[in-house]
């Protein structure tokens, strides 16, 4: 993995919300095909970190480069960049006025200018991949949370993105639905997709992560391979956090 080219690079990035210092001097690199799992207590800046990657939020200083494009508010390439970076949200954010199939095809058709028939073919392929091909013509409201999140993953895949961001994808799900979403994510990881995942699912992290990142109070406290991270974390803060969430 370390041999691959860097695809996301944070270089001394800072982000403020008014007076609140959300990201403090972040420097980190994600390489092509790398699976990075970001964890930390709530309010630690994890979500802000990944929302900066596709320009849902803009950082205030430092340099953030994604897929060769420098991300900032005035960037002309931001729309093209967002097509390369898929995102899955905690609250799914499916389009409720469109059917599942339309949710999947609207991006490719309107943004990528793919023909409707080809977009539909791709959409059905990915619905198959997330194991809900039979739900294509339903509206999102008719689906369970787990199914909705799998549709959301398929929607991002349909854009043929090279990077996938996951912002606590299982936090809003009922416990019995978490695994169906994680299974899909594990399969996706096996295809060699570059993934940055914010999650508290440490079982998943152990299984797929190449790199673990622990954040607290807007800083990256620890970056390590999973074996080291889980067995012998360097910082006391990280150890305390892991004790809290792994105890049960």
């Amino acid at each position, binding site marked *: 993995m370390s041999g691959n080219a860097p695809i996301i690079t944070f270089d001394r990035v800072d982000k403020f919300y008014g007076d609140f210092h959300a990201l403090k001097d972040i420097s980190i690199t994600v390489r092509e095909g790398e699976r990075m799992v970001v964890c930390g207590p709530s309010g630690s800046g994890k979500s802000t970190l990944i929302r900066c990657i*596709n*320009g*849902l939020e803009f950082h205030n200083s430092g340099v953030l480069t994604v897929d060769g494009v420098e991300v900032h508010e005035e960037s002309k390439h931001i*729309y*093209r960049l*967002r*097509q390369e*970076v*898929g*995102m899955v*949200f905690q*609250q799914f*954010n*499916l*389009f*409720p*006025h469109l059917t599942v199939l339309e949710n999947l095809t*609207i*991006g490719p058709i*309107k*943004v*990528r200018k793919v023909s409707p028939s080809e977009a539909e073919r791709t959409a059905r392929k990915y619905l198959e991949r997330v194991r809900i091909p039979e739900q294509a013509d339903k*509206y999102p*409201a*008719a689906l369970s949370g787990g199914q909705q999140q799998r549709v959301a993953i398929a*929607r*991002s895949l349909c*854009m043929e993105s090279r990077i996938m961001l996951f912002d606590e994808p299982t936090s809003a799900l009922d416990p019995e639905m978490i695994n169906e979403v994680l299974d899909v994510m594990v399969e996706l990881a096996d295809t060699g997709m570059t993934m940055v995942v914010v999650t508290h699912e440490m079982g998943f992290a152990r299984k797929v992560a190449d790199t673990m990142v622990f954040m607290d109070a807007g800083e990256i406290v620890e970056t390590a391979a999973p074996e080291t991270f889980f067995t012998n974390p360097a910082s006391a803060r990280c150890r305390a956090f892991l004790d809290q969430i792994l105890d049960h």
Partner: protein
Amino acid sequence: MTTLDTYAPKGRALPGRRPIARVIDSVTFSVILYAIIVGGLVMLSYSGAQAMGYNWQWYRIPQYFYTVTDDGFQWGEISTGLVKTLTLSATAFALAIVLGLITALLRLSGLVVCTAVAIGFLELIRNIPLLVLLYLFYYVLGPIFGFDRYWASILCLAVFHSVLISEIFRAGINSVAKGQWEAATSIGMSRGQAYRYIILPQSIRFMLPPMTGEAVHMVKSSAIVSVIAVAELTTIGRNIISDTFMSFEIWFTIAAVYMVVTLILSVGVSYVEKRYAVE
């Protein structure tokens, strides 16, 4: 095993409704009461008119809707006035929607200049009485830009209602969850695409009820253009009265015509609403 039929509640029974409440709420009673109230009001105005020695001539009204003579069927004055009112309101409403949407988008654009322009426009129009606005359009802007009384009326009504409609758009757009913007943005949509494919289609169902109210409001406020003598329903009413002195019959008729139009509008839209409701 206990089935639903044999199940007897073990707790104390809740007190039933009092008999008097059941009577008052019954359909028959409501209809009778309603008839008494309406009948009473009609009787009261009728006897008042009789006391004035008013000469009722309802039989002369139908000819103002249509006449059938040897020349064949012909629409009457009230009918042509109604058509004028409807075309005037419809044109003004279409313009008001375009103008309202532009104002709302400017206001929500987040750009200081655009927001300032939108707010300036809103405050300007909102703080001028409709009648004065109409005079401005007819006596001031009309001669300057060379439009006649008909277009002065349309533009005045459109501008006046665009302000109210822009607020409906703004509320509708804001009622769509923020996550929808983020999802649209994250698949690479521009702001315009997000509005067009994601945000506006969803906000329509929030906007439909107040929009109907606005359409009804438009038909009603179009009556004001009678002061600059555009030949719509209210002007026609005044003209007929100055010829015939049947003010009671004509104003009752004109009011009823407005009511029928606005009721049809409301019923039509509530049907559309049910039909296209998103579950």
